């Protein structure tokens, strides 16, 4: 469903967001994660993903990932048409295994960070980021 600018001129509603309904994680994200992990088990914990609960602007959502001891961290947007967002690789001389960037989200969805550790194991963290047309403040 695409909504024109004219149609978004509602009360207390946010900027022209293309689609508002929550996105379901699709098969594409499972495939993308498998491609990164090679199908290995992914544990919870050991990865910190910082993202806003509600995006101020779905076109540029600040996120930060950190996973001490990781050689690589991949970020996925489960509801985007192309779920793969970025992969950060850390060399042995990296002072810290963290990175911050801004990503575009097509709608409310989970953002998933998967870290590959030095021992070859994998860990992940996820956060739901809501992309909304807005409510009304008190």
């Amino acid at each position: 469903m695409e909504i024109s600018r004219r149609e978004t001129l509602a009360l207390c509603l946010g900027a022209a967001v293309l689609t508002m309904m929550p996105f379901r994680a699709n098969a594409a994200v499972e495939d993308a994660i498998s491609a990164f992990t090679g199908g290995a088990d992914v544990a919870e914990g050991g990865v910190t993903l910082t993202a806003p609960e509600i995006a101020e602007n779905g076109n540029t959502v600040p996120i930060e990932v950190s996973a001490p001891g990781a050689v690589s961290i991949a970020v996925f947007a489960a509801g985007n048409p192309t779920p793969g967002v970025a992969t950060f690789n850390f060399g042995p001389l990296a002072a810290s295994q963290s990175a911050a960037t801004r990503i575009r989200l097509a709608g409310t969805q989970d953002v998933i960070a998967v870290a590959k550790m030095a021992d070859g194991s994998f860990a992940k963290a996820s956060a739901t980021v809501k992309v909304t047309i807005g409510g009304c403040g008190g």
Partner: protein
Amino acid sequence: MISRRDFLQVSMAASALVGASGFGNWARLAAQQSLTQDQLLEFETFGNVSLIHITDIHAQLKPIYFREPSVNIGVGANKGVVPHVTGADFRRLYGIADGSPSHYALTSDDFAALAKAYGRVGGLDRVATVINAIRADRPDAILLDGGDTWHGSYTCLKTQGQDMVNVMNALRPDAMTFHWEFTLGSDRVAELVEQLPFAALGQNIFDAEWDEPAELFPPYQMFERGGTKIAVIGQAFPYMPIANPGWMFPEYAFGIRDEHMAQMVEEVRAAGAECVVVLSHNGFDVDKKMASVVPGIDVILSGHTHDALPEPVLVGETIIVASGSNGKFVSRVDLDIRDGRMMGYRTKLIPIFSDVITPDPQITALIDEQRAPYLDEMSEVIGQTDSLLYRRGNFNGTWDDLICDALLNEREAEIALSPGVRWGPSLIPGQDITREDIFGVTSMTYGQAYRTEMAGEFLKVVLEDVADNIFNPDPYYQQGGDMVRTGGLGYRIDVSKPQGERISNMTLLKTGEPIDASRTYVVAGWASVNEGTEGPQIWDVVESHIRKLGTVTVQENTNVDVVGV
């Protein structure tokens, strides 16, 4: 109207509350049938530190009527717990006698009748008297303003907040935080903040470009009072650019940022703070969650959702104090701070009964000075009301029904939408409606009343989206307003369902036909957050409508069917 002398014979309901030890005193006092300023202010000074909290004044300089909500639904873990308790259940919970002043101050039933007996509430000259009395007990009490101060009235809009800054500065606050202030635009906010002889706080106000703390708004302020060090950390409204027009303050980003809050708590503790107070505009449920997530906060002074609670709510070792809105209440919070921690507290929610509390003459003069240039134009009587006009409630209020009717008629629309904000004083049956009264429920810097077309499918998306901002079971995904008000459109809402499944049975009231997803409807509304919205100002639309009606009568609204509570 009741005379001042008669008032002294009327029952009262306020007394010092010790710890979370239960209520009870209010009903006892009510039985004694007396209400005096001394009783309202009565407080056995406790500990070594006093906080005074006022929040969400919405520029109400003068006494007003303000009806609390009859419908305030909580979801998830907050189902059925305060502040999501109203009416007789609320009175039973706190032991408040029916018909008592606290019934009138804190609940909504029989509001019009009780308003005639107990009179108006608020007025910053009365608030000044209360603050002075607390300062007489405790000269170094810390006065904290929770924000939504520079918005909500005719004079505030015309002076772009200057009237409120002038009057509040005379009350000598120690710090404030923010929400609607930002709708004055970031340049004006900066100009006003620079006039403040106190701290403008916001640990979650960030520079949008660099995602770093904004320089103009320090995260906290340290106070040395009562032989101890107290840190006050500010928390501005987290969802400003979503609930309000972000284009008016593009330099700033907000968010809850509880990790940063936790860092600030650690930082102030390391700097020697023995007591950590958060001056918050999060809203009550968000504050409860934050208290459970961020360790080390002693007191949260909660604003935004306009809840007035006679006792603090305890989450772990954090007390959360909710002090109402529109100048109707002031909270006094006395703390015993020793050996690096909060050993005890005593609080009192002081209702500002305008006919009982003597106004401070200097502040009265200052308020009248702010109003004088606008008095003639805002005092003009536009019509009368036969009905109680109020706004608060999750789904509708009679003020919004009237505004929606104005939009349908004046803008020739099939459907009207009015924002679910929580500010705006009430009018009781028999009152004149002045221009000032209309501005009290409409004034804002983006009040253009648009007229547009929306497909039925999009209307459903709008209702679902706004509903999720209120009824998402996780408070961090809530924005703290009420449901968008609809005119010409009925619907059923199941608040227990997830987003996308809450709204059903959407009906075009004019024809009684179901809303067709593919048909377009002519929709009028106001308060769009989009830049460049065109249309007449909403207050002009409402004024024109009321003039034609002469006397306003608003029927009970049965167009929203609420289930799943």
